[in-house]
């Protein structure tokens, strides 16, 4: 029986889809059988980030409405043997699928796969409720910005109300140099405010833009520091104890400043 994990954030544009693509690729490269489910019906993106958009024939709606079998709609990743994608439909909207249908779908998927990662749409309406319906675990993605943290807090409240396991936090797009200057909230600030467990911190990385352009998750690149962070999160999802990279630990220069008593 596999685990169903929903990746959510409330606010849009904080990196849910990128996170889903990278963690799915990470878990699959660690040998797990993984399926990614895009529940952002009407605004699908996961297929593009994975570079699989030209293979879509059937989608999630076709499955729940019985136009095809589940196996027919699953798209095999072009790089990893044991990674699959169930794409969202682009022409309908969130009301096209019901909570019960999502519960049925995820329970079918968890028999086949070790990890079912659900990419949740932004917002707290129907799409969100459907996305979390079949999941027992949740990862909340936020960025160190007031609006994103506020929405994350709202989402955490809703997840708790839905009686799921306590969600874990991913802080995305942290800019260590800004944190050092005191111009960005640091990890401690956010953990204090949100009061949930941290599973990883992903630094801002230009390589994410490049990898999205190419349709290849950044985790596959050894030089990407975001990729490194995602590799660590993947292993933590498997229960391994991986020490956190101290992104805030400052460069050589800032350490000198500290020595001088100025930093």
């Amino acid at each position, binding site marked *: 029986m596999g685990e169903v994990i929903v990746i959510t954030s409330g606010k849009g544009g904080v990196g849910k889809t990128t996170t889903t693509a990278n963690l799915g690729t990470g878990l699959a490269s660690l040998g797990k059988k993984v399926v990614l489910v895009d529940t952002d019906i009407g605004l699908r993106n996961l297929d593009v980030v994975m570079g699989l958009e030209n293979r879509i024939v059937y989608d999630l709606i076709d499955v729940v409405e019985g136009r095809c079998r589940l196996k027919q709609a699953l798209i095999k990743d072009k790089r990893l043997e044991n990674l699959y994608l169930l794409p969202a439909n682009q022409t309908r909207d969130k009301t096209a699928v019901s909570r019960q249908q999502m519960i049925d779908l995820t329970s079918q998927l968890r028999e086949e796969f070790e990890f079912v990662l659900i990419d949740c749409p932004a917002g707290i309406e129907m799409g969100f409720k459907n996305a979390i319906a079949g999941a027992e675990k949740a990862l909340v993605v936020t960025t160190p910005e*007031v609006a994103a943290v506020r929405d994350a807090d709202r989402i955490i*409240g809703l997840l708790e109300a839905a009686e799921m396991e306590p969600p874990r936090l991913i802080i995305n797009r942290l800019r260590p140099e800004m944190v050092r200057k005191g*111009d960005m909230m*640091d990890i401690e600030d956010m953990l204090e*405010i949100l009061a949930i467990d941290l599973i990883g911190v992903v630094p801002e990385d230009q390589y994410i833009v490049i990898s999205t352009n190419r349709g290849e998750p950044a985790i596959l690149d050894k030089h990407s520091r975001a990729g490194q962070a995602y590799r660590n999160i993947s292993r933590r999802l498997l229960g391994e104890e991986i020490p956190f990279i101290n992104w805030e630990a400052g460069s050589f220069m*800032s350490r000198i*400043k500290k020595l001088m008593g100025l930093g």
Partner: protein
Amino acid sequence: MLEFLLRFFGRDTASSKKVAKERLRLVLVHDRAGVSPHLLESLKNDLIKVISEYLDIDTDGLEVSLTHENDAVALVANIPVLRVKRTFKSIQEPAFKV
């Protein structure tokens, strides 16, 4: 010159991070009070029901909201009264006898 040096070494007087954190804290106190518009609406309807037993009120002009002052939450209702009823409804008999 000193100011320049401090700025150069990244020690701004009021760091925007602190501002962000303070603002968030305030906003979240509000959010976590957790009163949904739906709950306020049904509270409003119940208020109208009770008050109109005693007063004629302008139900369209009625406003109910929660405010926060110094970390305390207060329920503020603004109820325009049209006229005071002269006769009150008699209190209902209990539906069953003891």
